[in-house]
């Protein structure tokens, strides 16, 4: 695994923290999972290329500062907006006819939502327990077919040279 040690800048973190309650389920605030989601996203981005990291940062800053230009925002950046105005700003990007704005909104939502739904608390809430399932069926597999599986595993390194087999086939 590549871990470049990527860290969100303070500003990027501030923007993501403001964005999380809009793009993730609103309960994220009451659940106190905003920072956990942003941290998980940070870990994920550590494996992305430098280009992806830079493009994300550029997108976040553009999203943050272009808000100042909106007449109804009184010069405030996205992270300074009250919730309803911040939500409207995100929606404007989400539905934008301009592909880069729309793609930024979609991709950032995608990454934050992925981080949120991977938290153990949320898996529990969804009644999603894959590890338990894996343990159960892995045991069942060995109970039912253990001997056959072991025999086949042993076969994997037995000699079976290609050219002799091909010759026999011909």
């Amino acid at each position: 695994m590549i871990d470049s040690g990527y860290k969100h800048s303070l500003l990027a973190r501030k923007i993501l923290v403001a964005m999380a309650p809009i793009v993730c389920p609103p309960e994220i605030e009451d659940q106190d999972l905003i920072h956990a989601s942003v941290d998980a996203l940070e870990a994920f981005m550590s494996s992305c290329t430098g280009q992806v990291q830079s493009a994300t940062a550029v997108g976040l800053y553009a999203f943050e500062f272009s808000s100042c230009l909106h007449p109804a925002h009184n010069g405030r950046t996205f992270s300074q907006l009250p919730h309803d105005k911040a939500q409207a700003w995100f929606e404007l990007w989400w539905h934008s006819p301009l592909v880069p704005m729309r793609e930024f909104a979609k991709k950032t939502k995608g990454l934050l939502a992925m981080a949120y739904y991977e938290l153990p608390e949320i898996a529990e809430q969804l009644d999603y327990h894959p590890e338990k399932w894996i343990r159960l069926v892995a045991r069942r597999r060995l109970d039912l077919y253990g001997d056959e599986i072991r025999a086949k595993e042993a076969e994997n390194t037995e000699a079976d040279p290609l050219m002799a087999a091909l010759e026999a086939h011909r």
Partner: protein
Amino acid sequence: MTLPRGVYDRDDLTKDQTLFADVVIVGSGAGGGTLAAELAEEGVDVIVLEEGSYNTEFDSHASKAIRRMYRDAGATMSLGNPPILYQEGMTVGGSAVINGGMKWRTPDNILHRWDVEDGLDRIGPKEMDFFFSRVENRINVAYQDPESIGRDNQLLKEGADKNGWDVIPNRRNQLHCSGTNNCAWGCPTGAKRSPIVTYIPRALHFGARIYSNVRVGKILRKGKRAVGVEGRVVKANGKTGARITVAAKLVVSSCGSIQTPALLSRSGFKSPSGQLGRNLSMHPNVKVMAIFDEDVRGWEGVHQAYQVREFKQEGFVFAAVNIPPSIVAMTAPHYGRGLADVMADYNKTVIAGLLLEDTSLGRVVTLPGGAPVALYQLNQIDFEKLRRGLEMLCELLFSVGAKRVLLPVDGMDEPTNADEARAILARGFPRSALEVVTVHLMGTARMGIDRRWAVTDSYGMFHDAAGLMVCDASLFPSPIGVNPCLTIQTLATRNAAHILDNRKRYLQ
């Protein structure tokens, strides 16, 4: 983790070094891993270089698996309308470690086309049967045990049956797969017989050496002859480390349809055919989410147990493919409360996908720094097929009780019955609104008998250089309409036989 004998990683490779082998293979996946094992057993000295790590322990943590085993953390996208998210494996064993495990032979009509139109040598179904059988036996291609099939796949089959559509059980490389539904993150039980539990241990057993965490920058040349490769160790932080040079009699590029043309191009190899990097097909894939009243729990059971083949002649097939909540949430066209509402029904959801045998062709261009970029424009014919496929898929899902279906189209209404789905899809939508993904990348160094329109000969030997072979899905002259892994492994076995049949020519 202790590495098996013959495997080296970044911790072992701290100093510049030059290695020698008969054959050096770049990439350890379906093509490279298979070729390595077949050659090593015949006494050929083989070195495999792999950019990813040696991973053998897998769990259900999707984003961790993506970080560990997917190139660029899965965030790779072709440029075009629509942009298509594609994934390449980057782990010892390659994409086959993280694929769904479908193993279908190349359809006879495709082999026939390759034979007649591309003039490939001994590629007919009869000539290929030995190679297919050999791979199928090694990786245990079989139908699923009934207890491993979950409710989502049963619903898909019931829907096809109800409509009188052709539906078949999938052939998968598995040894009593228990249905963990973890294929895309690595099989936690080893039931999926991917290269990491078959060809890789076999190659090591017969003396091959595998150098993981090595990114190959270029193929070394002497005039028009490939004489080795040069790479750099990739450190844990992504920075480059020691220089690894391998001198070999035969160089094989097995790093997939995106990386292979880039490696050849940045090494200065040219094909007068102009086809290097061109002819890219992708099997575009779209998915729908169907919400039912009943508990489906699609993660309890194998994915893609069945394939709906009714529309194969039109170029598309359907399958049910459960995806973990995090990835569903990432790709769902919702946010906020809407997302919460969709996700609350996660355990009542069937996720079904459509795979298209495309007629669109893209290409891979190599940027000045050497990185590849895929360009791919979905043409009108394929776009229309995807639209029609979505219509048919909705019909199937509603016929077995789906309450609503989320379409992979940005901003589109959610139909609650088949008529509505038909009407909504008939209204039309821009291509750019369609969410398309793929894991099947093919065709960028196509085989063919004639160097004027093909990059390699019938056995992957580069037409316009000596000592250079391609051995991955780049070789496909056309898309094949089924999952490509078995075809890649079979061609690799056939290529191995060709090398061994011509030892004097290639290995002396």
